[in-house]
């Protein structure tokens, strides 16, 4: 499971970085989104991977190794919300740029 997750995060971030360095604004925003997904998975994995483990403790004697770490889950939730908001904001600027310059190049003009 660790290997699968690591490969998944690597592929997401790798493709994200490649897209981020492209010249079209749409590619940039998709790249940023892919990086954000990879980062979210990464934060999640920092709580150690566990299956069938609840993040909420029950009353009585507790063996912490049988529970998942709730903090990374809370962090991921916050990161998703903030990432969503900033991506939406970026999308608006991207559209404004397209409208003002008539080009979807990141510099507003085609490079010659």
């Amino acid at each position, binding site marked *: 499971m660790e290997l699968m997750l690591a490969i998944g995060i690597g592929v997401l971030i790798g493709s994200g970085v490649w897209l*981020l360095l492209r010249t079209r*604004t749409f590619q*940039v925003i998709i790249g*940023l989104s892919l*990086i*954000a997904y990879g*980062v979210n998975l*990464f*934060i999640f994995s*920092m*709580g150690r991977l566990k299956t069938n483990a609840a993040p909420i403790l029950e009353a009585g004697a507790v063996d912490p190794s049988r529970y998942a770490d709730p*903090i*990374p889950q809370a*962090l991921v939730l*916050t*990161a998703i919300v*903030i*990432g969503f*908001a*900033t*991506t939406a*904001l*970026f999308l608006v*600027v*991207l559209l*404004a*740029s397209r409208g*003002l*310059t008539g080009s979807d190049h*990141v*510099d*507003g003009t085609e490079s010659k």
Partner: protein
Amino acid sequence: MTDAANHLLIAPVVLPLIAGAALMMFDERRHTLKAMINAVSTLLMLVLAVHLLTLADRGAADGGAMTGVYLLGNWPAPFGIVLVLDRLSALMLVLAGLLAVAALVFALARWHRGGPHFHTLFQFLLMGVNGAVLTGDLFNLFVFFEVMLAASYGLALHGSGPARVKAGLHYIAINLAASSLFLIGVALIYGTTGTLNMADLAARIPEVPEADRMLLHAGAALLGIAFLVKAGMWPLCFWLPTTYTAAAAPVAAVFAILSKVGIYILLRLSLLLFGATAGASSGFGASWLFVGGLLTLAFGAIGMLSSQSMGRLAGFSIITSSGTLIAAIGLSNAGVTSGALFYMVSSTLTVSAFFLLIELIERAQDPSMDELAAFTAPDEDADAETEDEVGVVIPGTLAVLGICFAGCGLLLAGLPPLSGFVGKLALLSAMLSPIGAEPESTVPGSTWLFFALLILSGLAAMIAMVRAGIRTFWAPAEGPAVPRVRLIEIMPVAFLLVLCVGMSIQGGALMRYMDATAQSLHAPSAYIENVLEAPRVERTKAEEAAP
């Protein structure tokens, strides 16, 4: 600190939040009302910041609590989020408040009508800045950082136009990428230490097992890169001059604090987490910061010399000051830190004043460039009276502008008698006789290099400013164009410059404060102890009895 005083700690975050939210309720056409709310809130914030500064300073003098700690939700420190007030964060609050007041007064002349939601975004930006300097938790820092950035994206586009949108696009893209690095860094640090509270981290880092230390350092380095992007370290700073030049003048003036927030966090984290007590991690990153700072300083100086417009000159002067500060953090010496803090306050006020001044000077040179003229033109025809109410046009405009420009030049170059000189002098003398060094020991060559670069960058700033000044004020064949400047627009510039004059007059008292700040930063055990042992608020009997 008493109970009520303790609640004041969260006020710099709550006040702009409420004001910003309230501002959204009103239509853009009621701009006088919105301006009033914004002005009242910003002024209150400055008063509050000054009050917190006296609290933070007095607390140490009588031997009491040096650090004010506010437990959110009354959860004890490593489990809940804490807000921490010490001398450094109080200093940043006051600095942010001063810039905000100056920028807002300038904007009230006409810029605040240049686009929607200026006042709301302004308040949210201040909320982000205040929160980022007050918080004692890494993830909470991320949240406040994002609040600050999201508001700054909006403000950077204030006034619109292709140049701003293009610069804004690059600014947002690079900051979103930096935020991803921030998150990876935070996650790695949490994965290796199991905590995000800064004081708890400082306590746990010496005990991290050797196998995990590499990961911890990788996390800290990624985190550092995110802040270095914000602070503008070479080679992460190419976005900075373009964005700041394109931004509207009052926005650029208040943006001067954003790069200093990056510096603040670098200073705080490198001394708290990787200070003398950090065991095997002690001094991590210091040499990188030092070298990076020197490169930034050199890049900034060359940039200033090559700048053809004053806006870019001001942008590069931010990079120069960031470079100086980053290299000073890298030296990691209490005396140098204290000088750097003084220099930071002085240079931030200067650059902010300079950004405001540039707009006033350039307004006259090319009327077609005065984009707001088109925006406010129908307004001015319709009610010429309100135009007069806003402020009288000052006489002897060029003389006043020239004096302000000369003041900015002296401050940027670090010449006496203004505070730029005091700050650089404190830095340079601390470098030559560092605190704690043997009296006979020699100063290492790398410090001499910093010394030389700092002086050369001052020379570069002076040459660049003199050239820009001659070109603007003396060279035009048919005499310089006289801009229409209102009193309310020149006042904030004068206010910031007078503050710098005041800083050199009150240099002794301020240096004492900076020394005390640097001392407590370099001996973080009191900070750690205060945060981790902060008492919870006891519930009264009546509260317990209630259901």
